[in-house]
């Protein structure tokens, strides 16, 4: 059974779906993710199955530019996880 969070049920108009969450990622010497910390547990990245780069909205200026390098990875426990490195703020996210 899901425990009661104690928060009041409410509905706002729009909720983003698939929003990125920040994670801690260790990288190897080439800048590729080698391990990722999810829920306080460090998982080793076994393979990187795909990799691509997004560069968008550069016309809105350096503060609002979106520059991400995506990695479709598989962890040691077999889970597929999509991570990206936000080059604009130099942080790692899971999506």
């Amino acid at each position: 059974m899901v425990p009661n969070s104690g928060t009041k049920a409410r509905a706002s108009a729009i909720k983003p779906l698939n929003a990125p969450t920040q994670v801690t990622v260790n990288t190897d010497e080439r800048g590729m993710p080698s391990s990722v910390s999810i829920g306080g547990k460090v998982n080793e990245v076994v393979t990187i199955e795909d990799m691509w780069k997004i560069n968008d909205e550069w016309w809105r200026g350096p503060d609002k530019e979106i520059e991400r390098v995506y990695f479709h990875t598989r962890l040691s426990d077999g889970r597929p996880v999509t991570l990206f490195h936000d080059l604009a703020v130099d942080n790692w996210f899971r999506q």
Partner: protein
Amino acid sequence: MVDRPTIIVGENNTNASKGAQSVLDWSPELGPKMIRGMPLSEALAIARKDVLLLEPDMPLYGRTFGEVLVGLEARCPDVEPDTERAGSYGFGRAYIGIWGLDRLYGDDAHVVRALSNAVSQFDARIGVGENKWLAYVAASASSSGRGLKITGEPGRFLMKLPVELLPVDFKLTTRLHGFGLHTMGDIAALPPGAMQAQFGNDGTLMSDLSNGIDHRPLVARRTEEAVSEYLEFPDATVSMAAILPAIESLLSRAYAHPQLARRYAREAKLEATVLRRPPWTMRVAFKEPAGSRTKALFSIKAKLHDLALPGPIEDIRLTLSGLTGEAGRQESLWMEVRRDQKLQEAVNQLEVRLGTTPPVYQVREVEPWSRIPERRHALVQLSP
């Protein structure tokens, strides 16, 4: 019980002393010192006798009073039960609009006689006044089976009556005595502003009533169609294995009633006499009107499942009410439309239960072409 003084005790519903045991009614030999709403401890101190305490049987009072109202309505169409106090001790009080009845029965004395005949099995007291309050006070001052009419200046009639007649909490009446206000005349002598300053809204009400002012309109009750069935158990039982078949049997009898033929009921009420405990009542509002024994039983079972009976029950009465006028239900040819309606009903149901807009969303495409994943879809509030 005949020669024994008796007090009917119930829970006080007033805000000031909610939940406390108080006096609802008493036998005449206990005298005029008893006051409705008085705490039980004070009542026992006054009685100083071997008093028998009884729990009220509200379902029985409700049924009996319902029969009285039907009898009164046969003689006069405008009958209003005093619902303001029905939860505590308002049973037995009704207001009747007698305008125009003189053409049917003759003068007021004949009208009073006709109404008195309608409730001949009870100790009826009838009062005639220009408003509800004056009629009530006149009835309180009249004698058994007789009527009393207030004519002339109402203030003169009210001035010597005790403040205990005012429809306020017992504690407030005690405070009035503390201020030396023992009769309605004492209150009427004060300016309304002073009463309001001391007692708030209750002060205004008491001031108005003591001056014979009551602007409440007479609202005749709407008669509601209902089908009722009753069953007595051979032995008192708490076992659902015995109670559920009994309810099923009552439902079969109710749905076989010509009044319910090809019609639906919106609500079921179960009433039971509990061994050595106050009667038990349960209401079941059907999510969709129930047109058959099976559907009604399903909802009743679901509610009974979460409930513990207060004790072994001796009998059970089932009343189906909120009867619809329809003889069938219109189903939609297009299943998708029907599905949306069901979804909307579920959302409405949740909204009532949660008391706020339920957090039910659906996935909608926002910018499906976007290269940024979180911008492609969003959760938007469900509006079927």
